[in-house]
């Protein structure tokens, strides 16, 4: 079979297009499978993490460390995160300032411990939960 330069160019183009198609499919599959894996557990842990967060914000308000508008803003971000996890919306999770919210979860755990509601070992479990949740949020925010 004779292959003219035009035929060869067409073959090269077809090959390039198939490589591009495979690469595109692979790049789509990665984030999709990542979000499918990361969201359910984050969604599962959120009610418990959120409980500690709200406790911390309430304690900050009570002790005068957090002005009301800032507390309202934090609570609104928490609602946004809950909705984002529920909707499995990567962009909405990315828009949430988790590093600003995270210390209030820690504060909530501290407050429970100080009030004698939980013991130090239980606090350690809650802190492990916070660390794992934070790492999952980081992973979700890093999905391309």
């Amino acid at each position, binding site marked *: 079979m004779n292959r003219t330069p035009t035929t060869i160019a067409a073959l090269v183009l077809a090959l390039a297009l198939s490589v591009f198609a495979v690469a595109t499919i692979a790049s789509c599959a990665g984030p999709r*499978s990542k979000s*499918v*894996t*990361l*969201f*359910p*557990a*984050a969604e*599962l*842990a959120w009610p*418990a993490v959120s409980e500690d967060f709200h406790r911390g914000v309430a304690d900050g308000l009570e002790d005068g460390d957090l002005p009301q508008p800032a507390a309202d803003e934090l609570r609104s971000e928490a609602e946004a995160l809950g909705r984002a996890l529920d909707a499995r919306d990567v962009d909405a999770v990315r828009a949430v300032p988790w590093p600003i919210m995270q210390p209030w979860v820690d504060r909530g755990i501290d407050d*429970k411990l100080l009030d*004698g*509601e*939980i*013991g*130090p*070992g*239980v606090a*350690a*479990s*809650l802190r*492990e*939960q916070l660390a*794992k*949740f934070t*790492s*999952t949020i980081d992973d979700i925010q890093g999905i391309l």
Partner: protein
Amino acid sequence: MSTKDEFKALIEAAVAETGVKLKEAPAKLAAYMAERATHLSTISSEPGFDQAVRAERNNVALRAGIAAHDMASSVDYQFLGLIQGALRMVAVAEE
């Protein structure tokens, strides 16, 4: 059979039964579960123990990276129920 081996067998059986998909290998997840169950067994008399059991179940789920079923999230909860039950049982038995 060690706790870790028992957890591994439980995870494998639960995966086979529920069809849940995990990103973590059963042996590694079992080692992490055993570590968390040991921690729970040292704190079962502390106030708020139930919060710790729930947190540890969440920790295992976050570590496992459970892949959601599109239509049957109850399957995931069935799997998590088994995990939570096993953690509590081992923690109280080792107390």
